[in-house]
């Protein structure tokens, strides 16, 4: 990077660069597919963002309205609800997700290598590879009020069946639990890898010094995965607001007050009848800016804490 931006460009440097470019010319040809992909599917859509600043008639002319769409968002009750829900649902899944991953990895690490450990891993990693449609469908069946196993158990003990997925009281908690079911094992792999890298001699030395298992965990194991925890946190923060699929598949009009997130609100505004495409674009842009800020802030923090950036 530094060499080709070396200024001032003296002649020999320039000639050398041109020579190198010539040497690599076929590599540029090979990069054309990827380049076209990024232009067509990542950068061209940016042009559409201008809609957020226009009034968009279906047939009539569009005219520039500046930040008016954003102003109307701030007074829209539906938008504010979706914003609040996004924050709540995203932070629940982030916090409980990471906690369950770490605790599960720590506990599984205490199981000696062998058939039982292998079997546990095989079972717990599987749900990650199932699609959200499959996972949402499985739990729709299990939680169904007329024949789901959960309600069968409730009925068995004389209770009245609960329609879980349309209940404002149950929805968020179940949403988080279903996320844990899907992601607990997969999320633990990275910590297990970090734990496998800890030198066993450290534990032996600590044991000789009289440190119990709990002390060993606190002073050896946790510091060993600290860096991994931070990296995962940063990577997760980058995508924490992207909850469209699970929410879209599990929510329904009855639970909009607790379940509607920015992504699903955007979808309905943009695609459902009676929608408002330019307002939907504005909502999406708002979310993209927040996502970008989250990444930049965590990247900055990573630089401060770890001394290296992830970008």
């Amino acid at each position, binding site marked *: 990077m530094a060499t080709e931006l070396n200024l001032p460009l003296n002649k020999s440097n320039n000639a050398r660069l041109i020579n190198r470019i010539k040497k*690599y010319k076929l590599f*540029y040809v090979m990069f054309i597919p990827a380049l076209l992909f990024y232009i067509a599917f990542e950068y061209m859509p940016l*042009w559409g963002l201008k809609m957020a600043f226009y009034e968009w008639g279906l047939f009539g002319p569009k005219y520039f309205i500046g930040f008016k769409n954003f102003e109307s968002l701030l007074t829209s009750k539906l938008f504010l609800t979706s914003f609040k829900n996004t924050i709540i649902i995203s932070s629940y899944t982030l916090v409980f997700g990471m906690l369950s991953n770490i605790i599960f990895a720590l506990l599984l690490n205490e199981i000696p290598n062998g058939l039982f450990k292998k079997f546990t891993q095989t079972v717990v990693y599987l749900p990650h590879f199932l699609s959200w449609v499959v996972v949402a469908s499985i739990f729709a069946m299990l939680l169904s009020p007329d024949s789901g196993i959960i309600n069968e158990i409730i009925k068995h003990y004389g209770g009245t069946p609960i329609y879980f997925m349309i209940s404002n009281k149950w929805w968020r908690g179940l949403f988080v639990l279903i996320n844990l079911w899907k992601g607990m094992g997969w999320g633990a792999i990275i910590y297990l890898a970090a734990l496998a890298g800890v030198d066993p001699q450290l534990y032996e030395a600590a044991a000789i010094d009289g440190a119990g298992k709990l002390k060993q965990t606190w002073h050896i194991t946790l510091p060993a995965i600290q860096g991994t925890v931070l990296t995962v946190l940063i990577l997760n923060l980058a995508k924490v607001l992207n909850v469209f699929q699970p929410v879209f598949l599990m929510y329904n009009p009855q639970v909009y007050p607790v379940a509607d997130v920015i992504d699903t609100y955007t*979808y309905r505004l943009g695609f459902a009848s009676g929608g408002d495409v330019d307002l939907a674009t504005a909502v*999406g842009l708002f979310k993209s800016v927040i996502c970008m800020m989250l990444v930049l802030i965590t990247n900055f923090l990573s630089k401060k804490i770890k001394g290296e950036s992830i970008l």
Partner: protein
Amino acid sequence: MIDKLDFSKGNRGRLFFVIFNYALMALIIALMLIPLLKVLSDSLDNTAFYGISLIPKQPSLAAYERIISSASLYRPFMISVYVTIVGTFVAMFFTTTGAYVMSQKGLPGRGIFIWMILGAMLFQAGMIPAYMNIKRLGIMNTLWAVILPMALRNYNLILMRNFFMEIPDSVTEAAEIDGASPFQTFWRIVLPMSKPALATIGLFCIVEYWNDFFHYVIYINDSSLYNFQVKLREMVLQDDYGSSSVVVYGRSLQNATIITAMIPVLILYPFLQKYFVKGINLGAIKG
């Protein structure tokens, strides 16, 4: 193991923990498996009232026979198969060529390419502009609208690049000295050397294409192009949550459809497990 089961006084706490830990793991296994086993059992059960049993009361394959014999179900299945196969090849082409170029340390302008990818990771235009873009590209309501947007995943690209960077320079240099063009080196030497990497990324692509539902919902209106995931959603989720329930499907058929949607993933799972731990570790190094 034996020395951990020491009943001497100082070890009682440890013993308690070991028992607790095994019990907890067993509980987790049960919580993971019961939902899957219940759906499997109910899919094979002909009664309308399953109760809490995990064993079919009236074992029957009727639901699966209906899936095979009903065009409205096997057509989406074949769309899924088609998109998964074509998509995986397309994605492997984009990913390997892009990653190979990115792995060239001396390539002038490599930094620009890296920033181009980081920029795309950092800022997304969002759902509506992406939709407008697909419309403008003229691939709306075609299967290209679900194949192409997933053809190059940032994560896969970085993973593949990290794999390629592990190949010693001496190998490719030797080929170049023998007069091989970059294409020949790539095709005849680099790719054959990267079989584990290709398997890893290939499996990821297969699972991503098979499991995709998002792109169909946004970019496809023609229901004859819907894949199996979209069909499953229509059959179970839209029916159960009552948002646009048109047809009431039998419970067994709903359960059998869930199982059918999982089958390719279950078949590939042993291979996935073999490769993904390596893959996720490599990905973690370079984020």
